[in-house]
């Protein structure tokens, strides 16, 4: 059974709490400083998207162990408006030019696996995984 913990996102300060949780878990898994910084940046980005676009949601962190392969999963979920055009959001230059920071392509680059499930009017769930090498 994988270990999972979560932080609810309502205010900007909750982003800090989510980062803290992610960093602690990343350390436990054994990630080095650079990867810890990458994982927390990805959490920041996902948590900020929840805060800005959905208003509320949660960040869950799960430590993974798949047959001796260790890793960490960030699961960001909300019941916001959903992403109308995922393809566009995943394009380089789309969110950065609008001043939104690294955007979804950034999160994808910081992590190893990346998955978006979104439904208009229902919400969005983004799962991002990084494996320990």
């Amino acid at each position, binding site marked *: 059974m994988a270990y999972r913990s979560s932080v609810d996102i309502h205010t900007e300060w909750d982003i800090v709490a989510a980062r803290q949780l992610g960093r602690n878990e990343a350390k436990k898994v054994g990630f*080095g400083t650079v990867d810890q*910084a990458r994982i*927390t*940046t990805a959490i920041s980005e996902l948590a900020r998207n929840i805060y800005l676009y959905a208003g509320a949601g949660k960040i869950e962190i799960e430590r993974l162990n798949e047959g001796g392969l260790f890793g960490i999963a960030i699961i960001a979920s909300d019941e916001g408006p959903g992403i109308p055009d995922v393809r566009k959001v995943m394009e380089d*230059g789309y969110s950065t030019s609008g001043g939104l920071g*690294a955007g979804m*392509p950034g999160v994808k680059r*910081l992590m190893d696996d990346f998955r978006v499930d979104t439904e208009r009017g229902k919400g969005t769930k983004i799962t991002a995984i990084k494996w320990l090498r």
Partner: protein
Amino acid sequence: MPQQTENEYKEILRQYLEDQSEQNLYMGEAFSRKLIERDISPEEVISIHKSALKDVLPGLPSKVWHSFDFLIEMMIRYGLALKEHQSLVKRQEEMQLEMEVAAKVQETLLKTKIPAVEGMDVGYVTVPSRIMSGDYIYFVGNDKDEAGVAVADVMGKGIPAALCMSMVKFGMDSVRHSAEGPSGVLSVINRIVEKSVNDSMFVTMMYGLYDAKNSTFSYASAGHEPALHYRASENRFVELDAKGLLLGVSQDARYEEGAIVLERGDFVAIMTDGVTEARTPEGFVEKETILEIISSVKDRPAQEMAEHVFAELDRMQGFRLQDDFSLVILKKE
């Protein structure tokens, strides 16, 4: 590999901390190139620096080591910005390549053959200002005693103009030129353009038909730049214009038709506004200047004339065309 990179870095750093010479710095610069080649991100460089320093200068206060972790945090987004930049550059290269292929396709599509007509010397130049052209020259003829020429200018440049033009081309291919005559041809093309092009796109076109049996040149214009008729007997230019709306504006636009008789040594020059609105740093090139340039080569073959006018105007514009340039010369021998 990472271990090797770390060892190399440590060595260069150690030497620099000892000598602080320019040579050490130069080695550092060369090494940074290697780091880029090995796709090592800015945050990793800080991390390499931190661990190298731990070996070279152990015993530094712990706050110094914490400061490197802080710096790593600072660098994550720079690393992302770099990656995004690299991917955008790659995408731009792909698009550039695609554009070049499209330009080749356009070139083939717009290929036209000068018709051979008794007593008529024809020459032309058409040069796009960008990779794709919004100008179009189309010849048609029976290789005996009749030749038609169309010069069109799609408002706008680049890909949208090029797409619009391929439609004009297929329209031209389907018209019965000799039976319709200049105003008839424009009416047909107008209906095609009006039907299939969006409202913000307009095309101007001058269409001329030369009949060698009576040396008549008849013409019609859809809001196009007036053509020039050089009368050798009077040594002067007369503008050829005919009333008519731009193509694609209204389904039932009508096109006036004019006709002249060409004498020996006369020529007609049909052009786009890339010729008449040539711009130099000092402003537009005067119409008189353009007429002088054409006049100065009036005794040369039509092709040479067109090429000379282009070369002159290109030179005056500092070899950077502001607009697509097209010029057709029809010269009565």
